[in-house]
């Protein structure tokens, strides 16, 4: 081998090395395990193999709280990932951390290219945008509560399976009949605070907290002890005392009872669809969340739960380009439509919803479009845009405690909600102080 070919060989090796190293790598920390984790990894795999410039490394970091904690600890150590999946209750914490996050609209602007923030469903996007309409994090997995109905149990109790369950008044009548027929669990729920206070407030256009539910500033105060909320909790409390509403726990424990065929009605996230479909050996239907017909303006729209993707600050601009590319990829119709159909989460863009409809998915799987309709039927108001409250995970804990006092008959609805508001406000004041 002469010197020339040797030099050429070295040069070409270096060149290929350069090409291989040129892929910009970014880290993505998430909270998904099981089937959702697999689906997420598939998306990342598809992105990585679709081009050679960028590579996303997805890592599971525990449940939502643990992932958020891992992200915060990593930031304090200067080792933060580029993208962090944060559940909706962590939104205020992330938003208040101005030096720690890089708003998504900024990432997209700097990366250039086409990106249309108006393509996202406004009811979904609203949760993660500022009051002047700038998107802070990318909606990823969003769901909203719906009513699951066990048709076999209705029939067993001699009730027409097509019975109108659109309002809580009607639900109350049906619960009476179910109870009389000896059904042991006429109704149960998952995520009581999310469904029966947070969504109830938005659905009836009632403020959950002042300052547009916290969107307009951290000096917000809770206000979910108004007449509509009290009336609802009172009704549930009475049903609990009469054995018509069965409380099973703070999270989604009730899902097991519903899927097992014990409970007739079940208020739970639309993302519970995959599990119910896989396990239920009875006929079931998905109906819109009921509302109180006497409340003016009801039903407004429900709000979301789930998580969004936050971009953390302190990285190179080339890496932010990679982030932008990946986020655009996740928002693309094909990927979103697939995600929506596989999981029961809402489509985050109108295009993905359109595509799903055109593919005939909703016709083949009746009820899967209920959540989407419920969210988009009306333009969100300041009361139904979403919630942005500090220490919200803890406030939910307080709400759980106080609601338990109502279900067990220890407290009246009014007293419990007043107490929850008072205790929650103390936490909000501490949050305000920490984030001045």
């Amino acid at each position, binding site marked *: 081998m002469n010197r020339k070919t040797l030099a050429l060989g070295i040069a070409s090796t270096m060149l290929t090395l350069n090409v291989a190293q040129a892929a910009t790598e970014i880290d993505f920390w998430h909270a998904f395990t099981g089937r959702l984790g697999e689906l997420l990894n598939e998306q990342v795999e598809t992105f990585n193999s679709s081009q050679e410039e960028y590579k996303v490394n997805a890592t599971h970091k525990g449940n939502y*709280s643990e992932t958020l904690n891992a992200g*915060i600890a990593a*930031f*304090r150590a200067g080792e933060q990932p580029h993208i962090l999946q944060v559940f909706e209750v962590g939104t205020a914490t992330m938003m208040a951390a101005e030096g720690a996050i890089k708003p998504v609209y900024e990432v997209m602007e700097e990366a250039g290219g086409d990106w249309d923030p108006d393509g996202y469903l406004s009811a979904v996007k609203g949760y993660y945008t500022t009051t002047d309409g700038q998107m802070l994090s990318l909606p990823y997995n969003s769901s909203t509560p719906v009513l699951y109905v066990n048709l076999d149990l209705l029939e067993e109790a001699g009730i027409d399976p097509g019975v109108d369950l659109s309002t809580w008044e009607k639900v109350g009548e049906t619960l009476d009949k179910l109870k009389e027929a000896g059904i042991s669990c006429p109704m149960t729920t998952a995520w009581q605070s999310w469904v029966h206070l947070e969504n109830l407030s938005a659905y009836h256009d009632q403020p959950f907290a002042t300052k547009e539910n916290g969107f307009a500033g951290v000096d917000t105060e809770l206000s979910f002890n108004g007449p509509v909320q009290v009336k609802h909790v009172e009704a549930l409390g009475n049903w609990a005392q009469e054995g018509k509403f069965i409380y099973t726990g703070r999270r989604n424990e009730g899902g097991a009872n519903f899927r097992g065929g014990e409970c007739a009605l079940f208020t739970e996230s639309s993302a519970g669809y995959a599990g119910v479909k896989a396990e239920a050996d009875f006929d079931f239907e998905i109906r819109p969340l009921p509302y109180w017909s006497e409340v003016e303006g009801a039903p407004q729209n429900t709000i979301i739960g789930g998580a969004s993707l936050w971009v953390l600050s302190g990285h190179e601009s080339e890496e932010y380009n990679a982030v932008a590319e990946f986020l655009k990829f996740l928002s693309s119709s094909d990927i979103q439509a697939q995600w929506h159909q596989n999981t029961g989460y809402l489509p985050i863009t109108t295009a993905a919803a359109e595509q799903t409809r055109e593919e005939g998915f909703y016709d083949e799987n009746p009820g899967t479009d209920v959540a989407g309709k419920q969210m988009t039927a009306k333009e969100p108001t300041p009361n139904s845009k979403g919630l942005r409250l500090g220490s919200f995970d*803890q406030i939910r804990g307080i709400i759980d405690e106080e609601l*338990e006092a109502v279900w067990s008959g220890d407290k009246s609805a009014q007293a419990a909600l007043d107490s929850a508001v008072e*205790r929650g406000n103390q936490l909000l004041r501490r949050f305000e*102080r920490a984030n*001045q």
Partner: protein
Amino acid sequence: MEKRVIFRGKVLPLALVFPQVLITAVFFFWPAGQAIWQSLFIPDPFGLSSQFVGLDNFRYLLSDPYYRNSFLTTAIFSLSVTFLSMGIALLLAILADRLIKSSGTYRTLLIWPYAVAPAVAGVLWMFMFNTRVGIVSWYLGKLGYDWNHVLNGGEAMGLVVVASAWGRISYNFLFFLAGLQAIPKSVIEAAAIDGAHFWTRFRTIVFPLLSPITFFLLVVNVIYAFFETFGVIHTITAGGPQQSTTILVYKVYADGFVGQDLGSSAAQSVILLVLVGLLTVIQFKFIERKVHY
């Protein structure tokens, strides 16, 4: 006569003590100092800003009736766990000690639960007592008792106490059994010949001879009930219903990890530190006097 080893010079003894002092400093004094320092601030989670608030964190905590109430919850919980786990362990140890045939098998079986991690033990008991599908609650239902620890605070407390004590019985059993077997048989035989019945022998000879071990287990179990039962509570009740099973340590976690309220969490750690320090002093000052070595 007491035997004493006397070091000449100062270098060797200091060198021998040094590693221990270093470890204590790095793993105890430094973090404890940090907790005290942090308890004077309200920081934001990301560490971007921090407000000095003096003793406000403590004032806020002590003015919270729910926090004050969790002292009582903790006391009830740790006393119940300690007495239940030590009492049953002692009983089993006495039975196993008297057994001759296949005692090895019994002992192994009794030691098993100790190998189960608290969180796993919690899940196990949660399933057995699940209000809708649990096997125990189902049988209780058959007997006409409507078990519902999801709404009944007393039942929830009972369940976490049993689940916490369960794994601990094995550990205590091992120590009690070793202690019982170390008691010279001749002493007991002599008492038996004198006509002392089992109960008298136990009260006047066996139990006093066991007292060093009982004291050691008391200290260890109280500390266990205070700090290591987190997994059990987290998996079974998450502190509920209402706040009936929120012990002090659980609240530190809830405020620090769930609420990202690091100032309050640090202040609670300091309070716990003082409390456990006090408890240890009380145990060694007053209870140890009754121990015969």
